[in-house]
C-alpha cells in the first residue's frame, strides 16, 4: 500500500483537503507530518499542501523552507522520492531550492480564485502518466503565483522539459489571454530536472471528486499511484 505524508505547517490550510483525497479518494495510507519533526514515517510520497505557512511572513514559503521537516524532505527528494508542492507548497519548494525560480505577486495584484485550464506538457512523468486528457480543469487560489526565473534558467527549464503544466484555453491553446497571473511562458507547474519533485499553483486536491465540479486533479494522484506501484513491482 502506498503511504503518503501530508506536511503541516502553522498556517497550512489545504492540509485536510490533501489528506482527504489521499486517504478517502485514493485509498493511500495517509499521515500528517508536523513541520517540527524530521521523521518522514516511511512515506513513499510527500505532499506539501497549500495555505499561508507562517502567515507568508518574510516571503511566501520562506520561513517554512527552514523548518526541520524540510531537511528530511530535501534528502528524500535528492534520493528520488516523490514530492508534490501545491500552491504555498510550490512556494516552499522554490524557497528551499528543490525547484528553481520564484513566485511573485500576481501581475494584476489581485487574489485570484477560479477554475483554470492547464495543458499537460508531458505525460511521461511520475505525476502525469495517467492523464488521459491533454487539458485539465483545476482551480487556482493565490495572490503570489506569477512564476519568474531569469532567462538562462527559463531556457534550461524549457530545454529539459521541466515545464509540466501551462495555463491554456480549454482546447489547449497557450496564449497571454489565458494567463491569469502573469507567469512567464504561462507556467503553472514545473518539476526538478530529475522529474521527482513537482510544484504547481493549481489545486488538484480541490478537483478530485465529481461533486466538486471536476475530477481532473485525481489524474495526478492516479499517476503517482501508477508510478509507485510499478516501482514497487520492480
Amino acid at each position, binding site marked *: 500500500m502506498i503511504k503518503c505524508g501530508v506536511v503541516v505547517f502553522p498556517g497550512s490550510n489545504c492540509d485536510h483537503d490533501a489528506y482527504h483525497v489521499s486517504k478517502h479518494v485514493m485509498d493511500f495510507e495517509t499521515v500528517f507530518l508536523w513541520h517540527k519533526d524530521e521523521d518522514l514515517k516511511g512515506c513513499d510520497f510527500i505532499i506539501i499542501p497549500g495555505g499561508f505557512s507562517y502567515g507568508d511572513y*518574510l516571503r511566501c514559503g520562506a520561513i517554512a523552507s*527552514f523548518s526541520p521537516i524540510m531537511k528530511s524532505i530535501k534528502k528524500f527528494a535528492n534520493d528520488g522520492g516523490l514530492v508534490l508542492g501545491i500552491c504555498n507548497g510550490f512556494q516552499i519548494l522554490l524557497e528551499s531550492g528543490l525547484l528553481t525560480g520564484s513566485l511573485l*505577486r500576481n501581475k494584476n*495584484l489581485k487574489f485570484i480564485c477560479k477554475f483554470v485550464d492547464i495543458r499537460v506538457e508531458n505525460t511521461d512523468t511520475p505525476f502525469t502518466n495517467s492523464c488521459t486528457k491533454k487539458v485539465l480543469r483545476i482551480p487556482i487560489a493565490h495572490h503570489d503565483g506569477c512564476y*519568474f526565473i*531569469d532567462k538562462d534558467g527559463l531556457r534550461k527549464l524549457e530545454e529539459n522539459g521541466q515545464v509540466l503544466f501551462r495555463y491554456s484555453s480549454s482546447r489547449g491553446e497557450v496564449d497571454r489571454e489565458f494567463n491569469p497571473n*502573469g507567469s512567464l511562458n504561462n507556467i503553472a507547474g514545473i518539476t526538478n530536472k530529475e522529474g521527482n519533485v513537482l510544484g504547481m499553483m493549481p489545486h488538484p486536491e480541490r478537483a478530485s471528486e465529481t461533486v466538486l465540479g471536476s475530477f481532473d486533479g485525481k489524474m495526478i494522484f492516479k499517476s503517482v499511484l501508477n508510478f509507485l506501484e510499478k516501482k514497487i513491482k520492480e
Partner: protein
Amino acid sequence: MIAKVYVNFKKTILDPQGRTIRKTLESLGYKDVLEVRQGKVFTLKFKDNLPKEKVEEMVKKLGKDVLSNPVIEDFEYEVVE
C-alpha cells in the same frame, strides 16, 4: 550594535505594487515621480560588544541566505551604530 538590511526587487523584476503607488502619487499631483520600487527594511539589533567585522560578516550571510531571495531580490546593508 544595530544593522539595517534593505531588500529590494532586482531592477529586471516588475514591481506592480510600486507601479500602483506611483500612479496614486501621480493622481495626487506628484507628477515628477518617475518610478516607485517597494522594498523592505530589516533592523537587526545585536548583542553588545561584538566586533563590527563579525556583525558585518553575519549580516552579509543572513542577508543572502534568509532575508532576501537572490532569484528576485538584491540587498544592501549598513551597520549603523
